[in-house]
């Protein structure tokens, strides 16, 4: 009874993405793999599995595209400032001091 309920819940969760019932556990695995894929850390086998699934599943495809874009956007907005010159100078000064001993 509870596994039937679980299957129904999964189907309901993914139904708006037209991902059919048989794919639901595959979707869960794909979502787990998504970070690895986006970070280019997945095995070749997992990559094949992933791309084969998102090619057929609208919901997962959309989620993948969105996650990729959001991460790219965040990365582009993570600013950084240059190291102050006085810090660089102090480092070089200290190195000079210890290397002359």
């Amino acid at each position, binding site marked *: 009874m509870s596994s039937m309920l679980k299957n129904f819940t999964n189907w309901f969760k993914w139904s708006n993405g037209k991902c059919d019932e048989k794919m639901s556990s595959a979707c*869960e695995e794909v*979502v*787990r793999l998504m*970070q*690895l894929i986006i*970070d280019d*850390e997945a095995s070749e086998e997992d990559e094949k599995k992933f791309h084969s699934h998102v090619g057929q599943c609208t919901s997962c495809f959309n*989620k993948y595209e*969105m996650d990729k*874009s*959001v*991460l790219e*956007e*965040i*990365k582009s*907005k*993570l*600013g*950084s*400032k*240059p*190291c*102050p010159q*006085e*810090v*660089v100078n*102090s*480092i*070089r000064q*200290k*190195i000079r001091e*210890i*290397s002359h001993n």
Partner: protein
Amino acid sequence: MSDGTIDEAKKVKDASFESEFMVHVNALYNFAYRLTYDEDDANDLMQDTFLKAYRFFDSYETGTNAKAWLFRILKNSFINDYRKKSKEPDKVDYHEVESYYNSDGKDVDITVDLRVDAVQGMLGDEVMIALNRLDVDFRTIIILSDLEGFKYDEMAKILDIPVGTVRSRLHRARNLLKASLKGYAGEMGY
């Protein structure tokens, strides 16, 4: 060893130090600043790190991952020297946080949905503020991964944690960041 040879060896060392280590000052300074939020502390952390790197230069293999090596030294200096005099005395103990996130399955399946057009509408400041609000461990892993581009195994070495922990901590950190940004997005009408 003659004086000439010693001088020559020193020249080679100094040249390597300059070309392999000093090139990373900007990245390291940003990391130091984001850990301490204090220019003087960041400065001290930088001095400390580069001096250690120079002293232990012989244990570094030329041409290998200098950036990761330096980040690891800085992170360890931070934990040893600055964490103790942290301005956040009521924060959770470092080891407690680590062991919590070492356990499998915690929060792995929770994801935050955030629309890309919402993030596009944001200024860099908002993203940085959201980043700065994260706990130091989550902030660190976002910096290492998304700002500095380290791979999982590099981060595992820098942070002295298993690759599995890198994955789960990064996943959690990104969700926290997205959740924070989602708040801003809501305010902006997305």
